Each structure stands twice: as structure tokens, then as C-alpha cells.
């Protein structure tokens, strides 16, 4: 594997550079806000000037911005970062949210991949027929639904009216696996619908392209049953681009795509924490959460690139035609 090691090292350096730039960007966004003096926030409404001055001194708010940035980033990585709002430890809060966010995202990802493959396959096999048209309409509706609205509709009609699933909240997997799943079914569906619609469309069009390939004609010509041609030759080859998309989207969902679902269903994950911190303009959690989210996006991006480079030597040798 010529050049593979170098390619990976190059990508890792790029990843660190992007994360650094992102942290600077978030820091700047929140430090140019007027009227959000952090000392005032910590001191509370009745703080006098003396207290404010002392807080400014203690927390280093009088330092020049670059120095404040370095201090903040140091705290992110040593776990010393605390919220301006309630002095809780930010890294602890994020760690507490991770199992919830992962439970939500992994479950949703399994559902969306399974259903997207089934729908996309049926759509492609029956291209132009009634099944295909119906599935296309369903898919387009799926990508047109606002996630939070879908969540509320499911809460209202399924959870409240039919009483099928619990209304929001979260039960830990280790505590009661059945209740865990029961509480998560609606959030999983809510988060998955957009991707089911989108992926099934992509898979359908990929399959229709692959069906034109010579090797598919060869497979048919040598007398393979249609089902086998479709599953082994067409579907398999059409799945590769889908896996790439999946890598990117899964990173994006963990890194912030689940905020709306967690907010609607009141799931105490990282996304809900982000929503609450935004509402109170609490800088430290937002810096840490954005770093957390960007890390997953960049990480999965890199993984996809590396896998692709492994499969296609032109990329890692930098000779890929544009």
C-alpha cells in the first residue's frame, strides 16, 4: 500500500488544523457578542461593581483575547471547563449526555439504513411502476418534513392519542433495556425519516445506473435468476456510494443533527445540552459541544477519505483527475 501511511498522516494533520480553526471561530463568534458580559452572568443580577471586577480578575476576562482562548482550550482538554451559568463542569455534562445521544443516533442509523435499502431496492426493481411512484412520493414527503414538527406530531397522535409509547424522557439501557427501547422508538423514527427518504432516492438512482453496466448484462446472459442479478450484482455495487454518505451523515447526526429530536422528546443528550446553553448564551458549553460535534464530523470525513484512498490509489497519490 504505497503512500497509504503518508496519506493518513496528512489527513490527520488536516483534521487537527480544521478543529483548531473551528475552535477559534466559535470563540470569536461568542466573544464579539455585545451585552453578554460573562462576569455579569456569573455574578447575577444584583452584583455590584466590586464583585464584577473581582470575577473579571479571577476568571481572566480582562486578559487579551488570544490568552483567554488558550486558557479556555486548555480547560476543555483538562476537564476544568465550567459553565458561566451554573458553574457545572462542562466536560462532565457532555460525558453524561453521550450515552443518550449515541443510543438515539445508532438506533436511528440502523433503522434508516435498513428501511432505505428496502425502499430503494423495491423502487429500483419496480422503476416506473405504481410501487416506485408510491415510494418516491413517500420519500419526497420524508425529506420535506421538519424534524421537530414530525416529532411533535408523533408525540400527539401516537404517544398521546393512541397511548402507544411513552411521552418523551429517557431510561438508561443498563437500568431497563425494554423501557430504554420503548422510550426511544419514536425518537428513532423521527430522526430516521429524513434519511430514509433521502437514501432510498440515492440508492434507487445508483441501482438504475448500475443496471446499465455490461457486467449486469453478462450476468443475465449467463442465465442467472433475476433476483440473484439484482441482489448480488446490482444492489451490492450500488451500496458503495451509500456507505460513504452514511459515514458523513452519521458523523453529522452525532455532531449536532440530533439537537431537534432531543429537544422535542426531552432526551438529556448532548444536543439538548447545546439547546439549553444557547438559550442562556453560555459560552463554555457551546465551545466544548461545537468541538465535540466538529470532531465527529471531521473524524468520519477522514475515515471515509482513508477508506476511499485505500480503494482508489489515484487519490492518495494526489494524481486524481479533477
Amino acid at each position: 500500500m504505497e503512500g497509504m501511511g503518508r496519506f493518513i498522516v496528512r489527513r490527520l494533520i488536516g483534521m487537527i488544523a480544521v478543529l483548531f480553526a473551528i475552535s477559534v471561530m466559535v470563540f470569536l463568534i461568542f466573544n464579539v457578542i455585545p451585552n453578554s458580559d460573562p462576569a455579569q452572568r456569573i455574578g447575577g443580577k444584583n452584583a455590584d461593581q466590586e464583585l464584577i471586577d473581582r470575577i473579571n480578575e479571577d476568571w481572566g476576562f480582562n486578559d487579551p483575547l488570544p490568552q483567554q482562548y488558550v486558557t479556555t482550550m486548555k480547560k476543555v482538554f483538562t476537564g476544568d471547563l465550567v459553565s458561566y451559568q451554573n458553574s457545572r463542569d462542562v466536560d462532565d455534562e457532555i460525558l453524561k449526555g453521550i450515552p443518550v445521544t449515541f443510543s438515539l443516533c445508532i438506533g436511528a442509523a440502523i433503522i434508516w439504513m435498513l428501511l432505505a435499502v428496502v425502499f430503494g431496492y423495491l423502487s429500483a426493481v419496480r422503476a416506473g411502476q405504481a410501487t416506485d411512484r408510491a415510494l418516491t412520493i413517500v420519500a419526497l414527503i420524508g425529506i420535506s418534513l421538519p424534524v421537530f414538527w414530525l416529532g411533535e406530531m408523533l408525540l400527539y397522535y401516537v404517544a398521546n392519542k393512541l397511548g402507544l409509547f411513552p411521552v418523551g424522557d429517557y431510561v438508561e439501557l443498563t437500568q431497563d433495556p425494554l423501557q430504554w427501547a420503548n422510550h426511544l422508538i419514536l425518537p428513532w423514527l423521527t430522526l430516521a425519516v429524513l434519511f430514509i427518504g433521502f437514501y432510498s432516492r440515492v440508492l434507487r438512482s445508483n441501482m438504475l445506473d448500475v443496471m446499465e453496466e455490461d457486467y449486469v448484462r453478462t450476468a443475465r446472459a449467463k442465465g442467472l435468476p433475476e433476483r440473484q442479478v439484482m441482489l448480488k450484482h446490482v444492489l451490492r455495487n450500488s451500496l458503495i456510494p451509500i456507505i460513504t454518505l452514511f459515514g458523513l451523515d452519521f458523523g453529522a447526526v452525532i455532531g449536532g443533527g440530533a439537537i431537534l429530536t432531543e429537544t422535542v422528546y426531552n432526551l438529556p443528550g448532548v444536543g439538548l445540552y447545546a439547546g439549553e446553553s444557547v438559550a442562556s448564551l453560555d459560552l463554555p458549553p457551546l465551545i466544548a459541544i461545537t468541538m465535540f460535534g466538529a470532531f465527529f464530523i471531521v473524524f468520519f470525513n477522514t475515515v471515509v477519505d482513508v477508506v476511499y484512498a485505500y480503494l482508489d490509489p489515484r487519490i492518495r497519490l494526489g494524481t486524481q483527475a479533477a
Partner: protein
Amino acid sequence: MPPAGAMPTGEPPLPVGEDVEAIQGRSPWYLAYLRLRRNKVAIGFGVLFIVIVIFCLAAPLWSHLVAKTGPNDNHLTDQITIGGEKTFVVAPNGIPLGPGLHAKFLLGADDNGRDVMVRLMYGGRTSIYIGVMAAFITTFLAVALGLLAGYYRGWPDSVISRVLDLIWAFPVLLLGIALGTALAVGGLKIGPLEIPPDSLWIPIGIIGFVYVPYMARPIRGEVLALREKEFVEAAVAQGKGPIRIMFTELLPNLVSTIIVFFTLNIANNMLLEAALSFLGAGVKPPNASWGTMIADGEDRLITAPHLTIVPGLMIVLTVLALNVFGDGLRDALNPKAKLRMDQ
């Protein structure tokens, strides 16, 4: 005279495919129009979008002539007569009036006794306006950056691509709410340009900004490919400068891509606007947008579900109309292209 294959200004060519070869002497735009016309579903949804726009534009008419109330007027303590009986707009237990066949409060009232129908129409104006304006910003920036990066390659390409990568690596929603909350406090002041914190241009700018990489990347790719074509070489040989080549040679070839992206981009913008407003980082109350209306209705989901259902349905219908029509446009303009608009 430019050699064959180089199109002067005017009708930009589509990539030559089977359809184009089969019929001689018709412009690619006419052929695209014929293909689109055959797609009855896409046309139907295109018409639906226009109907929705007209519905929203008619807001002042409905407000003045039928409902006789404004979008932000409270009627907390008022009573209206329905079927000869006096009814509270907002019942003493706090539950607002539901939808019914009465000119005032056709779609019921909200928590503050505001007319949901009137708010829906005005809110639609806001939501569609934000969607369209943000799409203009995204398209303008993406085309400019894509042309520059794709034409010059080298270091301009590296710089632009890295910046796009950076924005792309940001979680879209987090970036949106970070900017939204940051700007909501004090607005934005750049030199003579001053945007107050409750201005619609704040969500428009944010939404227009975050989607730039999703459009600039594929456009850059297309420019890179077009740049190698003979007609660009011919233009260079004729002594055309870079700017003229970009505008008269490359841009016309990008038009079909841009149209499709623009349409789908409006749909995505409207979804993002709704999400940001729902999280409190988009349109500021009391201004109505479909997203803020859903957010307002959240607490009344069980007792007054119409507050959530009605604006949500409007978003779904509008976004669906744009998505189906955009899909049809893509098939008609460029049947072989695979354009993707992310989330």
C-alpha cells in the same frame, strides 16, 4: 468566429445527450421545457408552490377585509359570536378557540388570542421571503467562489476550498444557532451597515451563509471540468480575459445546475429557518413565521394541537412542492446530472 462547440453568449448548450441529437434545430431550453411539460406531477407541484405564494401575498387582504385583525393583535379577553352564541377567543382556562367555519379565527386562535389564519398568511410571507432571499445569497456566493476556485485553481482554489471545508465541518444547526443567538442580542454593525437584532436579515444572512459549501463544491467541480473544454481554450486564444471567460463562457454553462440548486435550496432554507426559529435563534417574536408559530404552539400541543399542526402542514406542503418541482427541473434540464443538496 469561435470554433464549433464554443457557444457565444445567448443560448447556453446542455451536454449533448440522446434526446438532443434526435431532434435537430431546437434550443436546449425548448427541449428542457418539452421534457418538463411531460412531467405532470412536477408541473402540478410547481403550480402548488405558486398558489401558496399567492395565498401568503393575500395576507393583508384577508387581514383587512375578512378577519379584521392584524397578525400581532391580541384578543385575550374578547368574545366572538359563533352561531348566535358568544364564545371566548381564549377560554378562561387558557385554552384558545379551535378552527371552525367563522370568518374571524377561521383556523382558531393562539395563546394570546391572535388569529391563526392571519398569522399563518403573514408567517408564510416571512418564511418564504427568508427562504428565497437566503437562496439568492447562497447562490451568489457559491457561484462566485466556485468560479474563482475552479477557474484559477492553484492557491485561490486551495484557500477557497479550505474555507469551505471549515464551514462544512461545522454542524449546520449548531453554527446556525450560535450565530443566531450571538447576533440576536446586539444585532450586527459593519461600518455603515447596521442590522438591528430583530431584523429578518439576520436569519437570512445566517441561512444563506451556512449552505454555501453545499452548493459551491459541486459548482467548483463543474467549472474544473468545463475549463478543460475546447471552447475555453478558444476564448483564451482569442484574447478574452478571465472575467469575460467566467461570465460569457462558463456561467451560461452553469445555468441549468444553478436553477436546480436554487429551487432545492429554497426548500432547505425554509426547513432551516423553521428549525432555528423553533430553537429561538431565528425569527424573533412577536413576528410570525411558520417556525415561530410551531414553537409558540409547543406548550399547547395536547390542548390546542391546531397551533402546531396548521403551520407544520404549510411548511411540509411548500417544501414538498419545491422538492418535487426541483426534481422535475433537474430531470428536464440535465437528465444525467446527479445534483445533491444536503439535508
